[in-house]
């Protein structure tokens, strides 16, 4: 920010609080980066906002006037302006653009241009109604659910903007981006018109242990080195409870074991598969016995773990 906050606001050092506020508002109106394209305006607004932060507090202002503090150190934390979001693709608050006869050209170039939009703020209220019987608006929300609720199905309680609570049924096998329609839970209709629907776009939260690949579910199963060498029967979690899994002798990290039909529910009643990815975990401490054994073993049986990689030319 400029060294002189008074200059940044364009006021004299004797300006009253009201004058300072007025000066800041004037700059906010003309130079707000969300309303003005000009980079110079952006700089003016930033300087004015920082100056206003300092001068609006009479105590701070007095300390600055006495020279006890300088204008530095008043930098606002880096602010992310709404423009960054509203100009980008997929702004959930943006209505669909309608290009009339060229709607299909737009859709061809930009994707789902003419399709119902995702997420966001209703702008329908500003259009003119042609009839007094009008169906209520559809309300759109984004609903975040955790991985297991989406995969197994369940209920999530949400609060609508008007304060009403609603229990939403999440069907088993729900996918990220899927929409749930709640009939009649949108805006009230006008006259004889029926109420609109609430449309919930699901966002499946990332889970540290579970992930989906299409219809399949992938989890990681840690195993010990002895289990890896000798093979074992180990319990693994699936969407529908634990199963005993046979770890084959000599399994490496990254090896995937398939549990058929234990993945996500597909339309039509079938299911994807569940893949358990093995991960060898060393003991917390390598004791002397293990180290001695390995030294001896290496003497006779050393092998090249990276032979495969080298063959690939990497």
């Amino acid at each position: 920010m400029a060294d002189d906050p008074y200059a940044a606001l364009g006021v004299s050092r004797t300006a009253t609080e009201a004058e300072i506020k007025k000066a800041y508002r004037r700059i906010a109106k003309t130079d707000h980066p969300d309303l003005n394209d000009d980079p110079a305006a952006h700089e003016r607004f930033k300087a004015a906002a920082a100056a206003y932060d300092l001068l609006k507090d009479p105590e701070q202002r007095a300390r600055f006037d006495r020279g006890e503090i300088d204008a530095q150190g008043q930098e606002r934390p880096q602010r992310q302006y709404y423009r960054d979001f509203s100009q980008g693709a997929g702004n959930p608050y943006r209505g669909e653009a309608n290009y009339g006869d060229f709607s299909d050209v737009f859709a061809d170039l930009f994707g789902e241009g003419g399709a119902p939009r995702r997420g966001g703020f209703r702008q329908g209220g500003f259009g003119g109604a042609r009839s007094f019987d009008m169906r209520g608006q559809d309300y759109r929300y984004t609903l975040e659910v955790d991985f297991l609720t989406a995969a197994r199905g369940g209920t999530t309680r949400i609060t609508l903007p008007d304060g009403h609570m609603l229990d939403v049924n999440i069907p088993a096998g729900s996918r990220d981006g899927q929409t749930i329609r709640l009939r009649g839970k949108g805006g009230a209709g006008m006259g004889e018109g029926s109420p609109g629907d609430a449309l919930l776009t699901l966002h499946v939260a990332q889970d540290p242990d579970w992930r989906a690949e299409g219809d399949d579910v992938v989890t990681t199963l840690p195993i010990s080195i002895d289990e890896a060498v000798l093979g074992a029967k180990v319990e693994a979690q699936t969407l529908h409870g634990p199963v005993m899994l046979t770890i084959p002798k000599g399994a490496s990290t990254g090896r995937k074991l398939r549990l058929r039909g234990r993945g996500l529910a597909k339309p039509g009643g079938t299911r994807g598969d569940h893949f358990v990815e093995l991960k060898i975990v060393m003991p917390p401490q390598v004791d002397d016995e293990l180290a001695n054994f390995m030294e001896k073993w290496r003497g006779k049986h050393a092998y090249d773990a990276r032979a495969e990689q080298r063959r690939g030319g990497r």
Partner: protein
Amino acid sequence: MTGAMSRDELLAALPDLSEAALDDLIRAGVVQPVQSGSGPLFRPVDHARLQLAMDLQDAYALDEDGLALVLSLIDQVNGLRGDMQAMLGAVAAEAPETRARMRQVIRQTRITIRHG
């Protein structure tokens, strides 16, 4: 959801926003947080939108409806600006002949005559 804040975190990040004012803005649809089992979540886009909404309220003394209209226009204009930039980027990558043909069509449909 990456970078999403709870209601308390949001209020802490925006000290000038009161609980009542936030409720009013949500009720008016100015901001629509993501619903989750643990309560509403505010994404970075919601955070930035609230900051702009507060700036506009302060500068123009707007009520919620006026604010909703202004924000809707900002969304439309900035969205179009983004579309336009993408379109211009695509046009810039085209061959000169293609661009000449496009220029001709644009001139025919959107003639701007500048005098002097």
